[in-house]
């Protein structure tokens, strides 16, 4: 399941909803990304996205995770709009029989989301505002899954 929304999310409530009535799950991993301040320089973060393509990309990434790992359930929630330091940005939940699949799938989802979901962050503060630049490390992290995939073939 994927969701793109302006509102905040409640991690506990999301996990409870995802796993309600299920007794086949043995491992649940959650990842939450939050707005980070750099030494008081960030007062606001605005997240722009590409409505339509965002949902398509998140669904595509989630389907790929489900094809790679035996997941009982998964959830990606990503916020957009105006956020402040400490606010939630993204939630990834993966549930499987055993922990390895849940851990790996959660990391995969985040690594791929960071390089392919069409979101852009703009930080504003006393020093003005700027578009956040993509980090080379993010592309490397996503590429590593690519290599693992090829190595397994």
């Amino acid at each position, binding site marked *: 399941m994927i969701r793109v929304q302006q509102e905040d999310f409640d991690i506990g409530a999301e996990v409870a909803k995802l796993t309600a009535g299920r007794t086949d799950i043995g491992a649940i991993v959650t990842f939450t990304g939050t707005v980070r301040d750099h030494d008081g320089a960030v007062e606001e973060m605005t997240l722009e996205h590409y409505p339509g393509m965002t949902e398509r990309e998140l669904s595509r990434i989630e389907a790929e995770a489900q094809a790679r790992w035996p997941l009982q359930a998964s959830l990606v929630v990503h916020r957009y709009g105006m956020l402040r330091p400490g606010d939630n940005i*993204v939630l990834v939940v993966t549930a499987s029989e055993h922990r390895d699949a849940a851990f790996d799938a959660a990391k995969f989802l985040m690594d791929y989301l960071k390089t*392919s979901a*069409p*979101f*852009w962050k703009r930080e504003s503060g006393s020093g003005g505002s700027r578009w956040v630049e*993509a980090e080379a490390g993010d592309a490397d992290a996503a590429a590593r899954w690519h290599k693992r995939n090829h190595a397994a073939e």
Partner: protein
Amino acid sequence: MRLLYFAWVKEKVGHASEEVAIPENVATVAELIAWLKSRGPEFANAFEREQVIRAAIDQSHVRHDARIGHAREIAFFPPVTGG
């Protein structure tokens, strides 16, 4: 065809979307960028570092050598920074 711009590409171009009739000799994304750059200084500025600009055809990521074909919607944007 509908063109969409996001983040700093949108700010430099000056608008978020537009309907355009592209010339028949424009077959690829790279050729579309070259044509856009000829439309005015705001486009030349927005696409100055064209190698860093990402493109999507009908909401799927593509490379600059992708053919436009019968695309309904083409978007240009900087590398993504979500998560």
